């Protein structure tokens, strides 16, 4: 076996991962090879030296630990709350749906109201113009607008004002 392979076996022996079949070639090689024997000494010396380190004062700063603690207490992005309290999920879903539906209804109603108001304003303006100037063209425009308003009012299920017919 080549020294490189034997040195892998030395490392595996050191970590307790060597197999029974690997022990014999290792022992045979070590008897004959000073370089590979030196690696064993090296590992033992290194471990002894590193083992003397006092790691008790090597700790993360307090600020770092506080940041981690704070983050751990924030609601879990995927898991915690909805598994722990499923009724909250149902409540939140119902509230969201209600808000959405209400929003859609309000939007529709506002749209219809603003259309009616705009048409009514134009109707009044044209009506005045028509009465004052007795202009045939204006009268025609007025009739068209009146028809439009009536159609819009019917489309929104709002009864047309009887005043509109009188004009």
């Amino acid at each position: 076996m080549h020294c490189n392979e034997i040195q892998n076996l030395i490392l595996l022996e050191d970590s307790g991962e060597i197999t029974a079949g690997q022990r014999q070639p290792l022992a045979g090689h070590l008897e004959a090879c000073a370089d590979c024997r030196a690696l064993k000494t090296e590992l033992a010396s290194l471990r002894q030296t590193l083992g003397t380190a006092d790691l008790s004062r090597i700790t993360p700063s307090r600020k770092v630990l506080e940041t981690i603690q704070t983050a751990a207490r924030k609601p879990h992005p995927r898991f915690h709350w909805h598994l722990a309290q499923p009724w909250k999920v149902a409540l939140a879903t119902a509230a969201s749906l209600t808000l959405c539906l209400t929003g859609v209804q309000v939007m529709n109603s506002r749209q219809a109201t603003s259309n009616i108001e705009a048409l009514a304003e134009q109707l009044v303006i044209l009506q005045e113009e028509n009465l004052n100037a007795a202009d045939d063209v204006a009268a025609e425009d007025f009739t068209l607008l009146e028809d439009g308003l009536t159609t819009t009012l019917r489309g929104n299920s709002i009864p047309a004002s009887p005043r509109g017919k009188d004009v």
Partner: protein
Amino acid sequence: MDGTDEQLINLYNQGDTGALDTLVERYKRPLYSFLWRLTGSKTDADEIFQDTWLRVIQKAGDFQQNRFRGWVFKIAHNLVIDRSRLKGRTVSLDAPAGNSENDGTLGDLLQDGRTRGADEQAYHRDIRRDIEKALVQLPKEQSSVFVMRMTLDMTFREIAELQGITLNAALGRMQSALAKMRDLLREHQPE
């Protein structure tokens, strides 16, 4: 709080924040010393330690592995590698082992130190500082194998799995780390 690491992370997933505090406390020293030895900087070790746990918190719901220890060190190791790549400190992923002209071993160097007459404690302190300095200069892929094996007592199979490499690659990185450390320590040794 008692329980295995895996039980604690599952408790945390069920809303028990105290379980995570216990895990942080349990891993405070080994994880921090691992980071400190790899980076050689308290600031870097602090930042990566914090980022590691923030990622643990973020990904806790996805935890499906057998061993929490492997998972948390894998996260930390990847963050160290990312940071070193960003800083451009890593020389190469698997650079060839040390100087072929070198005829000494770490064992010889350590023995030489003893014969200089320094007392045992002071000797160990000095040589340890040299090792720590040398570690910072190694490519992170190699120094992390060295630290995981020599100070955290992880097996090579565990290291290989954690780093996503083959067993032979882990052994090769360890051999390279030892050879380079031999060269670096030689440079640090007084004439």
